[in-house]
Structure formats: structure tokens, C-alpha cells
């Protein structure tokens, strides 16, 4: 059982993710912007954070870096529906701080596996 924070601007995905993770037995908070994510991270304690890297207004990569430096040791999982971006050099370089990358088409089991392996 882990305490999870997820930031994603896609409302449907956010709610499906939260429901799924809760069903898997985790505690989940969902936010829709990077700013909220930072606020939540400061007020609560989380075992793992999921960040969508393509959000309106940008800032995802710097968010990754900010979270990584403000909360060292907190596993960051980058999720994206734009899988091709994972392969671009800019992304690969920019997302080195993330402990895992996940496609949005991942199943609950796959996400669970990432959570379990990251927090152990």
C-alpha cells in the first residue's frame, strides 16, 4: 500500500487512474496542474508521484527537476500519452531525474508494478 500523488490535466484519465489505484489498495490524490502538485507535496507525505509531462503551460520538466530537488528520494514516474516524445533527445535528457517512465496506455497491473518496485 502506497500513498500516491498524480498530476494530469486529462480529467478522465485522472479519475480513472485514481479509481484504479484505490481499487489496487493505494491512497491517491489527483491534481490537475504542476502548481497544485507542489502544494500537495509540501502539505502531505507521498511515497511516489506520477507527473504527466505534457500539460498546458508547459513546465513539466522543470517540475520534475523542482520536485526532485525539493523532495530528494521521492520516486517520480513520468507518464505521457505522447510516447514518441520519450524517444526524443530533448526528453531523454530532460527526464533523467525521473525514476520511471510510463505510457498512458499502461494497465493497472503495470502501474501497480511500477509503484511496488519504486517504493521498495
Amino acid at each position, binding site marked *: 500500500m502506497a500513498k500516491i500523488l498524480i498530476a494530469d490535466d*486529462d480529467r478522465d484519465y485522472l479519475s480513472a487512474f485514481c479509481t484504479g489505484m484505490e481499487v489496487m489498495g493505494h491512497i491517491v490524490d489527483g491534481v490537475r496542474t504542476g502548481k497544485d502538485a507542489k502544494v500537495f507535496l509540501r502539505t502531505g507525505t507521498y511515497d511516489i508521484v506520477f507527473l504527466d509531462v505534457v500539460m498546458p503551460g508547459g513546465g513539466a520538466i522543470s517540475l520534475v527537476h523542482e520536485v526532485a530537488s525539493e523532495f530528494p528520494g521521492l520516486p517520480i514516474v513520468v507518464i505521457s500519452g505522447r*510516447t514518441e516524445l520519450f*524517444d526524443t533527445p*530533448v526528453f531523454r535528457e530532460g527526464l533523467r531525474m525521473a525514476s520511471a517512465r510510463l505510457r498512458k496506455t499502461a494497465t493497472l497491473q503495470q502501474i501497480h508494478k511500477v509503484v511496488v518496485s519504486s517504493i521498495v
Partner: protein
Amino acid sequence: MTTRTDRNRPANRNAMPRNWARFASILVVAIALLNLGLGWGAGLNFFTRMMPSLPAMVPGTAVCAALLASGQILRLSESSLSRRSGTALIIVTPIFAFVQYWFGAISNPVSAGATDRMSTATFAGFLIVAVGQCAADYLREWGRNLHVVLAGTGCFLALIGVSGYIINVGELEQYTVFRGLSLLTAVVLFLLNAVVLLSRPEHGIAALMMSDKPGGEMARRFMPAAIILPVVLCLIADWTTDIGWITSNVRLSALALVLVALSSVFVLRMAGALDDRALLTDQANLRLRDILSGLDVAIFVIEPDGHGLTLNKRAEAMIGPKKPEHWLKQSAFHAVQDRRPLHGAEHPVQQVLDHGREIFAGWIDLDGAEKVLRLAAFETGRTGGRTNLRVLAIYDVTEPWLLRENMARSERLEAVGQLASGVAHEMSNIFGVIKLSVGSVELSDPTVAPTQFRAIMNACRRGGALADRMQKLTIEDASGGETTEAISALSAAIELVRKAVPSDIEFDVDLPSAPLTIDCDPIDLEMAVVNLVLNARNAMVEIGKSEGTIRLRVAQEPEWLTLSVSDNGPGMDAELLKRITEPFFTTRRATGGTGLGLAIIDTFARRHGGMFQITSTPNIGTLAKLRLPLRGSSGSAAQEDMPSAVTLAGLKILVVEDDLQFKGVLGDTLTTLGATVDRAESADSAMSLIRSAGPFDVLLTDYQLVGPEDGHELAKRAIAYQPRLPVVYLTGMSGVQIDEPPIPGLILRKPVHLGLLTHTIRLAFDTQLAGTRGGDA
């Protein structure tokens, strides 16, 4: 440069004759002053009559000569006032001379035998000079050569005087007109007339003598001899008869003979010089033709009458056996866009020659291939007396034209690709939502419709894979993301290909049992194996070999996976081997080979930092070896290709992009490298940032911005506000054609590698610091 010399040349050309004229006039004034001062004033005979027995240059003559020469000097000046007073002097002088002449004639009548008075020839000489000078200065259209005739006559009269003194003064004195003409006066008259000729150097004798062309050169070379030699000859003839060497009868014929010989030599030498010149011209023409033939442009040089035609080799090849005149008039051209025939007034050759416009036209060449031609014409400038030649240049622009068409097509494809990428992103999200929701329901109550849920999950998986593939289409380099367990992928491929190998061919496979992970798409690896095995099979089946063996080995070296496929088939010679990995090279075109199999394997290997190699011996067999780096190894060439990113610490960068694909990722990355980044999504917001938050160190902008203004228009505005701001442009993947941005800047094509991006930004900034950026005047 050229225009400047052209403008200067006439002035230079006129400067020399003017200087000579000024010199001659001053000489005349000097002679006159010496005559008056030292001659008549101080009583030195030399300055009045040269020798005691000769007629003197009287003071009146000296004054007239000085007046005329001064008038001529004033005429040569720049100011119009001086020139007008010069004319006045020149007009007044003959009147003064007439008074002197008349007075002298009355007081010292010719019959009296006295010589110290102005001679008739002197007065006539002054009159001729005055009229000649006025004609030279004022007659332009009508009688513009009058001064040449007058001055020529004047020179002739003066020379009669001079030669009379040289040969026989007594004889000269026989003629009333010349009686009393002094040697000094004759010289002065000659000089004054020479000045008249030189005052209009663009015409007549002076023009020829001063010309920098071969004719002028020749005139200058021969003229002194032509004047001096006959005179000297006559003197010699005179002298030899005087001392009794020859009789006067022999003298005449000898003189005639020598003169004939002399003039013949002159004529022949001139003819020779002309021939040499003509030969040079011919050689120049031939060389020009050779040069034209080296050009990749068909050149037709058309004489003014429209008939004479000179072609270069390219043009000759183009028209084939046809006559050039006919080809130009009748050759069938068509419009490039719709292949509509162009004839009559639309015929491109006619249009180009008549209107001087540049025209593109389609044309079917002698082999039946369609060419796109660009036709252009120009006229050569007028040179000398020759009228303009017209030059028709025909360029073969088929390749650039096709390239441009393809470019337009690839731009459209890119747009479609970007759209697909956006759609795929949405699909990923949607499938993700469905998967997670189904998964949640499945977990919370596994009894609810398990079959249906499995179907939904399967459909989602397929949809997700499809979305992935669609997205992959939009980026060039898909390597790096995927890993494959090589042994299981290879086993599957071997099972598949085993069915295709005939039973009489032995298929020997050796795979290690431990799993090996490599960074590549399993499909690519499978395709490579299938291709190699099928190639080996085909080679053996084709020669009907019954006892062949195909051996497939996979071996693990410390950091590499080596896959080798060997056969004992017919093999290949070195020549064939060299070309075997070229795209579209195949020996099996007839049986459906595309020639891409080995090329694809080669590309695949290199893209993943490995290598592909084929060795072969004819009649022994072929060995194909594929080496791929194992995951985690450092042998990847793909990584070596990328320069590492440099720090951008301290740089203030304005990032202007509205690209959906990157959405701020670029700015984020630059931030992580130490730069201070401000972002804008349009030209307007960028400008307000420049005004409020500037100055910036670098402007990084998309070349294509959504909205009324492009990246380069933004750059223009930004430079106007912050001069010397370095600009870096970003363009789409296939590189939309950029026609030299008006504000120069470095150009980056997406997807951009981080190393390249940071180096580019640094380069732009450092160059600006050094102050050498182009575009700053």
C-alpha cells in the same frame, strides 16, 4: 566598381590631349614673349630671325600669336567666364592681325623687298587658327569636322614654311604669299593649329592619334616616321646632287623609288599588324566558344539580323540534327503545369526574345524524356561599331523542379504526420482511461462479465499499439526506447523461416540458452534474420544445389551479440559484394526482389550502434554477420554521434514556440541547463516580453508561428528594438524551405538534439559577443 571606371574613362581620355594642347599653347606664348623681350627688346637676333639672313618674326605677329594662344588656354579652362573671354580674344586677334598686316603692307610694300613685316601667309594662318578654333568650340552637328579641315590646312601651310626653310629659303621667297614668313612664325602657326585639333580630341585626327586602341597605337608608331623620313630623304637627295654625287635626273627617280619602297614597307607592316589582330580576335572567339561549351547551359548567340547563330555544345546536343533557326522557331514546348502546347505568341523562345522575361517551359528531349527548361535572354552591350548580340540561355531545371514538387509533397505529409501524432496522443489517453477503468471494475468485482472485459482490454491493447505506431511515424529516430530479448525473438523468427527452407537443405541453428537483451524493435531483428536466411536459401535454390547447408549462429561477446548466417551456395564476386548493401540493388528484380532487404539490415545495424558485414567467396559460399550492442554496453555509436550538452548558465533566453508537440518542453530543458527562460507563444507576446523583460541574450523562435507574423517577422521587430540580438530559428522536421531569412540567424531542424541545441545557442551568443554577426552593417 565597373560603373565607376566606365564613368571615369572618358575624362581620363580627354585629359591627355588637353594637357598636350595646354603645353603647346604655353610654348607659343613663351616663344612670343622671348621674341618680344630678348629679340626685339634686347636685340638678340636669334629670337627674331634665328639666322641673320632670314625674315624676322615681327612684334605684331608675336603679339597676335600670344593673344591666340592665351585665348586657347582660356578655352581649355573649366569656368564658363574664362572660356567666353578666350573666345573673345580669339575673335579679336584676326582683326588686330589684319590691321597689322594692312599697315605693314602699306609701309613696307612687297615689291620693296623688305622682309620685316607680317606676311600674307602669317595673316592667313592666324585667320585659319581663329576660325578653326571657333568651329571646334561651337559647331556640333553641322560642320563638326570643319575645324579638322581648317587646322589641317593650317598645319599644311605652316609645314610648307618650315620645310621651305629646311630645303631652300630662296625658292620659298619666290611665292608672294610666303614672302616674309619667318621660321619662328611657321613653328608657332603649326603649334596653334595643333591645339585646335587637340581641343576636340573625340573627333578626327586627334582622336585617332590619342586612341588607346590598336589603330591609335599604329598611328603613333608610324606617324613620326611618315613625316620625318620623306623630308630627310629630300634633304639627302638635295645634298647629294649639290655635292655632285648624282645628277638631278637621277635624284628624282631615286627619290621616287625610295619613297615607293618606304610607303610599301609602311603599308605591308600595317597589313601585317591587322592580320595579327584578326588572328587574335579569332582565337578569342574560339576560346569563348570553348568556355561556353563547358557550361551546363545551352547557349544560343543570335546576330542582330536574327540569322547568324552560334551554339555551344550543350545547345547542339539539345537540338540534335535540326537547324538551329528552325529549332528556335518550331520546337514544341508545353506549359509545365498542364502540358498545354505553347505555340504562336505563347512560344517561349519568342516570348523570351521579345519581352526579355524569364520563362519556364516543358520540353520533350530527343530521347522522349520530359525536361523542365528555364529560358532567359539578354543582350550584349554595344561594343565599338557592332550592334548588340542577343544571347538565349536555356537551363535544364528538371531536377530542382522535381525536388521542389517533392518538397511540397513532403510538407503536406509532415502536416498529416503532425495531425496523426496529435490524434494518437488523444487515443493513448482514451485507451488509458478505458484500460484503467476496466481494470478497476475487474479488480473490485471479478465476476462481472469477464469475457467482455477481456475483449475490451484486448481491443485497447491493439488500439494503444496502433497509436504508438502512428506516433512513431512522426519522428525520424525511433531507436532507444525499446528493448528486446533477442533469443526469444530470434527463436520465433527461426521457427517462421524454417518452414520456408526446403527439406533437402540442412538448416543448422545454434542459439545460446541465456537471454540477451538488446536495444531495438523485435520486429526489426526478426526481419533481419528472416531476410538473411531467405537470401541464403534463394542463392542455393537458384543454382539447384541439393546438398546445401545454412548455418545460423548467435554468439555472445562481452558487449555484443553476433548473429551469423552462412551458406555453402554459389557465393559472390567482389564486384557484386561491393554493391550488395546499396538500396535498390538486387540480382532478383525479375523474381520480385526489391533490393531493399540488405540495405534495411545495414541501416538497422548502424542505427543501433552495430554493424553488418557480408563476406563471400565464389563457389564456396557466403557469410553474413550482424553485430548489435547488448543493452547497457557502451559500444553504441548512436550515443557517440551526439555531442554532449553544454551549460547555458547565465544566458537569458526568450523561447517563442507554439508547437503542440513540444509544449514547453524546450524551455524546461534550457532551464535545467542553467538558462533563464522567458516563454511566449506569439510574436506579439514575445515583443511585449522584449520590451518589458529585455534585453535577452538569445531569441529562440519557431520559424513558423501561428498567427499573422512568422518567426522572421518577429526577428525583424525584435532586432529593431534590440539591435544585435542573436536569433536562432527552429523549423519543422522535413525542413520547410527557408528562403534566406531577412534577419540572419542559425537554423535548427526538429527534432533537435540537446547537444546541437545548446551548442547552437552558445554559438549564436558568442558570435554576437565577438561582434561579427552578418547583417550588422
